[in-house]
């Protein structure tokens, strides 16, 4: 908040913060069993931070849910466990490995095998198991063109599916979370934030971030122009060589589909500068989006994050 010439103004970060807190409180007020989808990435970390603000001095009135592909960056899991302990939240883990073991999904094979798509089944199974009626996520409309069409309160039918052509009108600040038994909502409190807003807010609020967002030496290999982190379960093509590079993550997903940025950025100021100068979007290096022009729309319809 700043005063200038007698007029009070609120800058855009505080306006976005106020909007997100409003939406998070609506979730707690309108639903019986909400949950916060926590991936360990910057957007869900900001979502946790905003949720703590929304209910202080009370603890979070909902648990965190992590859909664990088993193919995480180890740093993500360390960060997750430390965070959960610090804030005293309840953590539920939905395991993709378990879904595979139970025969609910079939592991992909080949060089570009990823558990990204498999997560949807694990997510929907976990939502059903715990009877969650609202799952909050850190998705943003600026990330991807199908997400640009998403409501704050996004209805899912009893099969967990999204019907983008038949969404409920959403006006002013009035959110309608009414539903039938077995249906649920996905809620996106930071819908209106851009990647830059997220980093500037992290900087403003001095939020601790996982170490992989900052530059570090890592074993990597290059596939079709994208640097990927090497992990023992990843299958390399004959021409692909493991090298050590100074890299950082711009976005964090499953290790198999997260492209790394060659970067020297070792603090938040560096990251903000790097993003300001960047000429590609953060999802430009995500393998999961490159499968087709409508990859995200198709996955979202099925119930993806």
């Amino acid at each position, binding site marked *: 908040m700043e005063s200038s010439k007698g007029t009070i103004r609120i800058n855009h970060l505080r306006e976005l913060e106020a909007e997100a807190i409003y939406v998070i409180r609506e979730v707690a007020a309108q639903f019986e069993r909400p949950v916060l989808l926590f991936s360990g990435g910057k957007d869900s970390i900001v979502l946790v931070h905003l949720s703590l603000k929304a209910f202080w001095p009370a*603890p979070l009135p909902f648990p965190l849910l992590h859909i664990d592909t088993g193919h995480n960056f180890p740093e993500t899991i360390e960060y997750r466990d430390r965070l959960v302990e610090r804030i005293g939240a309840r953590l539920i883990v939905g395991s993709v490995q378990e879904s595979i073991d139970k025969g609910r999904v079939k592991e992909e094979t080949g060089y570009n095998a990823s558990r990204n798509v498999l997560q949807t089944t694990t997510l929907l199974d976990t939502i059903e198991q715990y009877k969650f009626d609202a799952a909050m996520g850190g998705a943003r409309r600026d990330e991807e063109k199908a997400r640009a069409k998403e409501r704050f309160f996004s209805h899912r039918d009893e099969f967990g599916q999204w019907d983008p052509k038949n969404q409920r009108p959403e006006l002013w600040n009035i959110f309608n979370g009414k539903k039938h038994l077995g249906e649920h909502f996905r809620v996106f409190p930071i819908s209106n934030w851009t990647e830059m807003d997220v980093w500037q807010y992290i900087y403003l609020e001095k939020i601790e971030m996982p170490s992989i967002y900052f530059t570090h030496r890592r074993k990597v290999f290059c596939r079709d122009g994208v640097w990927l982190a090497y992990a023992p379960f990843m299958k390399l093509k004959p021409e692909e060589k493991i090298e050590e590079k100074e890299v950082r993550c711009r976005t964090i997903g499953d290790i198999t589909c997260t492209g790394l940025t060659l970067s020297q950025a070792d603090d938040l100021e560096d990251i903000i500068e790097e993003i300001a100068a960047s000429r590609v979007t953060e999802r430009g290096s995500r393998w999961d989006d490159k499968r087709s022009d409508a990859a995200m729309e198709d996955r979202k319809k099925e119930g993806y994050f």
Partner: protein
Amino acid sequence: MELLRFTTAGSVDDGKSTLIGRLLYDSKSIFEDQLEAVKKASLQKGDEHINLALFTDGLRSERQQGITIDVAYRYFHTPKRKFIIADTPGHIQYTRNMVTGASTAHAAVILVDARNGVTEQTRRHYYIAWLLGIKHIIVCINKMDLVHYSEEVFLHILNDVNLIGDKLPGVDLHFIPISALLGDNVVEASANMPWYQGPTLLQKLESIDVRNHLHEKPLRMPVQYVIRPISDKYHDYRGYAGRIESGTLRVGDEVIILPSGMSSRITSMHVGDTFIEEAIPPMSVAITLADDIDVERGNIIVHPGSQPLISNAFEATICWMNPVPMHINQLYTIRQTTSEAKCKILNQHCRIDINSLEQKPGENELKMNEIGVFSLKASRPMVFDSYRQNRATGSFILIDEATNETVGVGMIQ
């Protein structure tokens, strides 16, 4: 940085998606991977130019049909401002999306095809922007390249739009001649229209006054949620969480809780664990009160002396959003601020023909995309202002009790 939210409206083929694509492209808000994807898609479709509309049409069926089906939100910034665009479809069957996009906007950009001039759709777009209380309307007269950049055509359309403005007053109206396809007067000033000395669209968007003076209006803070920690440390803490929709709230202020009418005093205010002395819109805060009184979600906290209306009967302009028409005497759930009640539609005073802007006699039903003025009765007293005075406390949605869908939206008169 300040935030400007604006909405765009235009008919099919007015070039609205192209205009937004142009704004993003020329303000360097398009990234290389997005550009590559669009180039590839344009080539595949056999387009002559890069099809700028492809930046905004997000759904597969939109790209296939070349039309915009649903509201899409776009983000860009310049060194001066940050912008959120609600890009809304202009077809007649999608009026509901335009109403949606307009509900949170400070400004509306309405496109008029220079070859066609003012159409029924222009009137409709103008009316909806006006109805939803938008203060700034920018009329972009597009495709000037196809009318030889003629000033005469521009002035003719300007004159016709002003005739609409006479009927729907209170709007700050601007006109800009553009070619979205070629970029004239969108971001860069046009060399083809030396007769136009005004700002480009981007310059206009950067300079519109976004101050809404909400903090000078009477205080309205709807209670969203009651914070009650179950812990020894905060045993007696009881916080009321909500958003300051208008007015300025300070620690020590005497306040009244509506509809109960009980009064108390603000003892503390905080955002997260940061305590503050003063709160203004649109801050989401939590407050504590001096007295242990009954306050719950749906109550509104106000200052003594500038109170809203409290009644279970009121009149409102309603826009219908659902394929199943509204019927007189039907029961709906009404949600206004954070409160909810049952509500009955009593009678229709008139229906607005949004193409001619004429009032037609009311009937027993209201179909999708129609707008009418109604008397309503709620199952319990509602705390409200007229929409013209306060967007937040004067707006509501109607929910169908069987389907749970949002079927109608209303503005209290």
